[in-house]
């Protein structure tokens, strides 16, 4: 199996690996996937009081493409509002990393991780920040 240079770069030098303390103010966590499926992704967002994602961290159990997809997502969400983050689609990730068809599910999982983290934030903060989260569907 051959990987694109971008996948290899993220795999070799993953950005933003790590965790925030769950109880820290403004932290949202999304965990998706299952060991039996071969991928588990944990994405954490640090959201400031203006509703902007200040920082993001990930941990991923999965193949090189899954690691690269999550690493890429942590870079992309920074500086975005939660709404803007939800605009990141798996197709963008797949295209950026030049994922082959058999690896598209990795980008889907990364998109799901964003959704899960945003949903976690909303469940903790009511609906004060976001509106219209399903508009793009």
């Amino acid at each position, binding site marked *: *199996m051959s990987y694109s240079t971008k996948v290899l770069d993220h795999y070799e030098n993953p950005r933003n*690996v790590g965790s925030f303390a769950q109880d820290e103010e403004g932290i949202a966590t999304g965990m998706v*996937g299952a060991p039996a499926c071969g991928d588990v992704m944990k994405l954490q967002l640090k959201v400031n009081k203006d509703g902007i994602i200040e920082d993001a961290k990930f*941990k991923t159990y*999965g*193949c090189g493409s899954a690691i690269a997809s999550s690493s890429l997502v942590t870079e992309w969400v920074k500086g975005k509002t939660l709404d803007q983050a939800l605009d990141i689609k798996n197709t963008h990730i797949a295209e950026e990393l030049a994922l082959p068809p058999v690896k598209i599910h990795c980008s889907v*999982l990364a998109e799901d991780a964003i959704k899960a983290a945003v949903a976690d934030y909303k469940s903790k903060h009511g609906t004060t920040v976001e509106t219209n989260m399903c508009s793009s569907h």
Partner: protein
Amino acid sequence: MVKTPVYLDYSATTPVDPRVADKMIPYLVEKFGNPASRSHPFGWEAEKAVEEAREQVAALVNADPKEIVWTSGATESNNLAIKGAAHFYSGKGKHLVTVMTEHKAVLDTMRHLEGEGFEVTYLDPEPSGLVDLEKFKAALRPDTILASVMLVNNEIGVIQDIATLGEVCRGKGVLFHVDAAQATGKVEIDLAKLKVDLMSFSAHKTYGPKGIGALYVRRKPRVRLEAQMHGGGHERGLRSGTLATHQIVGMGEAFRIAKEEMATENERIRALRDRLYKGLSQIEEAHLNGDMEWRVPHNLNLSFNFVEGESLIMAVRDLAVSSGSACTSASLEPSYVLRALGRSDELAHSSIRFTIGRFTTEEEVDFAIDLVTRNIGRLREMSPLWDMFKEGIDLSTVKWASH
């Protein structure tokens, strides 16, 4: 500095030993005759070389040269032994016995026979990878014509007790076939003592060339087979086709070297394997696959928990090793051998088979220990499952949001 990728996949194939190559080349160039040509020296010279090689192969396993039939490799030998015997003896019965952890060449042949109306019992091995004698005995029936058990497993390197299994078969009048493709040069084989009726060999796992193998067919008591390849009547009609002299010569020389050097070579290899195991067993949550006592010294098969299989292979790509994931066209299939030992899919996926051989050095082993240790650490740093394990969470109780 070692040259990468470091080859630790000697059970997949081996380089041809330089001494083997030197013996083969003249039979590719000036001694090119067809061994079946009876009318001129080109043919005689080739035939003589073929018969010398037959003696060398027979000598390694203490058989009569007349009991050795050349084939294109162990896969063909397995096909010929199992189908050939099943067809010939189908009047006696239609039942065969084998083990779930056999090579695909045996399992697929069995499935093929099932399609022809034969019945096959596939025994589960013990978690150690070994066949339980009582379960084996219980599987043999009055209508069983043949049992097939490999001597050395290709993935986990465990050695089956074919001496005892053979006695059981002989006692019950069941033919016993043994796939010894992974065994030559690694374990002693004495066919004068073993109650084995058919045994498959390959050259390219023992520093000989690809494309050549042999089948041992016992003469006393005589075992008969229905030929699978018909034509000019080569190999006493058991296997037609022009004999590839250079390959046969190569196999002969490879087996001669194996006979001469296996005792000292295996000790050197055992020391390397033990060094590798000692180094890698420092890694937390590294699980050995297969029995350690009944095992060839060349093999080490470990599963690394909480690390995903494909990323593991990617992480260790400076090592040429095999993983427990067989890559099919679209998905990763966990190794059926490790699954048969009762390993979970995850552990089967995150396994690495290290196989050490004639040209492996201590530096290479140390390089492997360092590389694997560093990368397992790196991947676990990235793994949410490792965090959870460290926090004491039992992963089997977690409800996963599957996608």
